[in-house]
């Protein structure tokens, strides 16, 4: 029983990371995906910050929904609550990182406040609520999604770095070629499709 729970947990993480990737098949967070992926360092910074925020937001929002909103019979207030939690969490994390790890703070810079409007965070928390996941499963979903975001945005930034020097026609320079590359990456990730089914 114990092992099967652990296996489910790990399978859910892998499934969220590779099979049902947050960017390439669920499209959460595409704005920052296109906007921030021009340099590898900034993509890495953004990815790590998003990992922090997604995991902490899921950790906080699940108890809030199940122990506060449901007993008070106001589950329809979920979106407003979540967005406030995420906004204050981002502020909180920014302050903590600034105090204890100033180096990381400087490298994350402007990407921290931008995470509030990253659909990936609200998307994961809202999906956990809508699918009525248990606490363990929603944490697995959050970790898998966050790691998937980090993986894809870093790989994509590396590809885009190479594309900068590639000789492509003038009209597909910039965003169009980035989107076409994303399409090819999405096809590559289709290969994981049959791997796991929960």
């Amino acid at each position, binding site marked *: 029983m114990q092992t099967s729970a652990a296996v489910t947990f790990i399978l859910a993480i892998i499934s969220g990371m590779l099979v049902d990737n947050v960017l*390439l098949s669920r499209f959460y967070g595409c704005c920052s995906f296109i906007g921030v992926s021009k340099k590898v360092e900034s993509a890495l910074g953004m990815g790590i910050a998003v990992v922090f925020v997604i995991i902490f937001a899921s950790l906080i929002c699940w108890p809030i929904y199940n122990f506060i909103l449901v007993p008070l019979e106001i589950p*329809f207030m979920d*979106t*407003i609550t979540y967005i406030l939690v995420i906004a204050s969490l981002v502020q909180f994390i920014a302050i903590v990182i600034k105090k204890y790890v100033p180096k990381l703070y400087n490298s994350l810079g402007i990407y921290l406040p931008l995470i*509030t409007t990253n659909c990936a965070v609200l*998307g994961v928390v809202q999906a956990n609520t809508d699918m009525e996941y248990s606490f363990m499963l929603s944490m697995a979903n959050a970790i898998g999604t966050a790691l998937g975001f980090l993986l894809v945005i870093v790989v994509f930034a590396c590809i885009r770095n190479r594309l900068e020097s590639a000789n492509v026609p003038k009209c597909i320079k910039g965003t*169009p070629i980035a989107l*076409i590359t994303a399409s090819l990456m999405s096809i590559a990730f289709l290969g994981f499709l049959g791997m796991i089914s929960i």
Partner: protein
Amino acid sequence: MANNKHEHLKNLTRGIFIENPLFVMILGTCPALAVTKSLEAALGMSILFMITLIGSNVVISLLKKLIPEAIKIPCYIVIIASFVTVIKMLCEAFLPELYSTLGVFISLIVVNCIVLGRAEAFANQNTVFDSFLDAIGMSLGYGLALVIMALIREILGTGGITMGNILTFIPYFSFVPLASYKLQFFQMPAGAFLVLGLILCVIAFYQNRKHEHQVVKERLIKQEQALLAAQNENKAPNVEVK
């Protein structure tokens, strides 16, 4: 007065073509990629988006003097989130098929960059009426972009168009002449990225061409002016001599 009317018209039409939020400013890509699998879902999303944007733009422009500068972003987010909650509940009650198709993307209107962007860039500096017009123009532009993408994806991906499954107030009809030649690829996530990339590519192609035309035209005008100036210089001394 006429000038004033012209300004209003400009506020309305700007969002549709010149500053189209999806194709020109490349904002709000997440729902654009996710809901354009079928034409109906795109239409439904555009309607919900329009109601949210009009509501939030009008309310934020009404409250622009009351909201303190330091906490304006959280205030905007709460206003937008309230509208989204109302719309979500209305949609769940009256259009349950649309609600289940769009799913989490209705909630994600809250973090759609366009809504917050218009609040920040337009509604907090302009009058209520102008913000209302701006919201209509922007949401029409976004809706148009979604419909174009959805048309391409649905026709190529299913071989035709089917209506009435999701938006139940439209009578059901299905016109699928090319069903045996459908390309499943365009219904998949990869197809969404490809379609958006190709549309942006076509737009960039025409813009580049227009730009080149303009450069050539400017050069021609400059040459003409230089010629005229040269002629005038030749003439001028003659005039003085006379």
